[in-house]
């Protein structure tokens, strides 16, 4: 029996191997052979991956739609930048910054974690009451969260430089730091899904009332998933901020929300494999289209510009996908290595436990 259990576990966690190895190969290839442009795309890919996985942790497991996660990206970006900027840079960029914050200066990684932690704390405070909501109420509430955060970022000039760009952030984000964070997030998302809490949360997704009737605490499950995903999104926002260096609150609004939600939907929200596949697929298509758009805009081939071209094509593709295959490319399945690779012929199949999808 013991070896059966081991086999089940190996089978279950083979998903991680299937996901991590190709991602690692992408990073290696970018590091060894990639030019700077390609490396930048891979960095963006992994930052996107973190945000899509973070959304999967909450939305995929709980089934509650959130249009508000990009708020945490913005919070993480600004918070980490405030901690990682040198006092001199802050004096130049944020003239009316509060004196307490003016001299704070910590290294990059702690600043990232602080950014994530601040996002998580805000998520914890507002998430607990909001965890009771589902369906349209949750959608409107999370959307309201996005609008509130955007309004605050836009107008809190002391800390964010208002609607103007924030400059003076150092470009600390490297390929390997981002890759490491992204790979860890894959493990985190998969681990969370397989914990008992993740299982309970998935039960509430399928039928909230039935799950509650067998003693599942819907609110606690959603709350913890919300905090966890806010933390990851916050860290991703921090990485993004120290990669882009110059940014303003507009970057953390509807366009970004659409991109991240779309990546998750395309892959399929119910599985970690879906989040990874969606990110790889859509980042590739997005960067390709964007390159065409920028190329045409710069070459003056057309009388006007192609602004919006990428989003139009992506939106059409997404609507078609939602009509044809609403569950996404992976439709909730995870990649797994075939069981026979480690199943000795004499042992019984372990279907009962492995087909719990």
């Amino acid at each position: 029996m013991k070896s059966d259990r081991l086999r089940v576990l190996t089978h279950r966690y083979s998903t991680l191997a299937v996901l991590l190895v190709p991602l690692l190969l992408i990073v290696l290839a970018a590091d060894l052979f990639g030019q700077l442009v390609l490396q930048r795309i891979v960095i963006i890919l992994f930052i996107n991956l973190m945000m899509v996985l973070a959304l999967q942790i909450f939305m995929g497991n709980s089934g509650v739609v959130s249009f508000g996660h990009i708020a945490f990206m913005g919070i993480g970006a600004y918070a980490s930048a405030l901690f990682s900027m040198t006092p001199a840079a802050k004096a130049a960029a944020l003239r009316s910054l509060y004196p307490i914050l003016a001299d704070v200066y910590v290294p990059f990684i702690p600043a990232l974690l602080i950014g994530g932690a601040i996002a998580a704390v805000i998520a914890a405070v507002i998430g607990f009451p909001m965890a009771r909501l589902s369906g349209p109420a949750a959608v409107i509430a999370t959307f309201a969260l996005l609008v509130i955060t955007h309004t605050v970022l836009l107008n809190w000039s002391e800390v964010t430089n208002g609607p103007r760009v924030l400059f003076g952030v150092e470009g600390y984000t490297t390929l390997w730091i981002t890759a490491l964070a992204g790979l860890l997030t894959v493990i985190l998302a998969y681990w969370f899904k397989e914990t008992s809490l993740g299982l309970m949360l998935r039960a509430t997704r399928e039928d909230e009332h039935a799950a509650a009737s067998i003693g599942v605490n819907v609110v606690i499950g959603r709350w913890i998933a919300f905090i966890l995903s806010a933390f990851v999104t916050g860290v991703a926002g921090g990485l993004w901020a120290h990669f882009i260096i110059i940014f303003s609150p507009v970057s953390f609004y509807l366009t970004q929300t659409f991109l991240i939600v779309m990546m998750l939907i395309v892959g399929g929200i119910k599985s970690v494999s879906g989040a990874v596949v969606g990110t790889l697929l859509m980042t590739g298509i997005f960067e390709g289209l964007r390159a065409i758009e920028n190329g045409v805009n710069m070459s003056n081939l057309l009388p006007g510009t192609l602004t919006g071209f990428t989003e139009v094509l992506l939106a059409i593709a997404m609507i078609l996908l939602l009509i044809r295959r609403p569950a996404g490319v992976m439709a909730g399945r995870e990649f797994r290595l075939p069981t026979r690779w480690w199943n000795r012929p004499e042992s019984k199949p372990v279907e009962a436990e492995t087909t719990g999808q």
Partner: protein
Amino acid sequence: MDIAIGLLQFLINALSLGGLYALMALGLALVYSILRLVNFAYGELVMVGGYALLVVGQATGIPWLIVAGVAVLLAVAASLLLERIAFRPVRHAHSNTMLITSFAVSTLLQNAALLLISPRTKAVRIPSFFTENVSVGELLIAKSNIVALVVSFAMLGILTLFLRRTILGSALRAAADDFVMTRLMGVRANLVIATAFAISGLLAGVVSLFWVGRTGSVVPAIGLMPLLVAFVALVIGGVGSLTGAVVGGYLLGFLTVALNSVLPQGMLEFRQAFVFAIVILVLLIRPQGLISLRQRAERF
């Protein structure tokens, strides 16, 4: 006397803004009540109306009223088209699918405007009464406010008559109450849903006239604010109730005008944040709406 004048001024401003908000909310609530769809593309119908005003208005010699009529018709047509192309194929999918479809449609239309027209703000020809004031004694009122007030009352009145006195209207109300049951009674689902989308487009079109009239310009993101307003009013009034949406719209109009005169200048920029914080609070404390007329069970 000054207080009376101030009060009257406040009342007219609040009633005209509230009337517009009520129209916006009703357009969203009508579709929601039948399909359980929070239509994120609703704001883009206002955008369609706005750009129609721009494009048709550029042709000189056409009276503005005809331009306005064309804009409203185009908003209705856009709404019907979206229903047919994007929403009908996903009608029977999970409600989240329909929701995300509407988000994609919204992105599509906004970026199409960016791509095909211009990312920049475009000035729109508007008739002079949008910028004129009339004074009655000491009272100074913007003419556009009076028109908005009258038009919104008229629209709400006509819609009420339609919903209460015609067979199609009754079918619509019945569907809003229990769609499955209504279909079992022999009402055609496609007809009811198309009617709801048509009215939704009509309301968005009328709103677009006044919304564009306020600034005299149109941008691709013009629909965001009406959408947000409709969300808020919908939540205040109790999600899914038509009367609630209208009352919610008026309440929000009053609240906005009041906040404008009460909040200190420095806090005014955060007004939107305040309003949305109120929304989250309402959703948490009274998810059935502040003024919910009766308890409504959750339906599928």
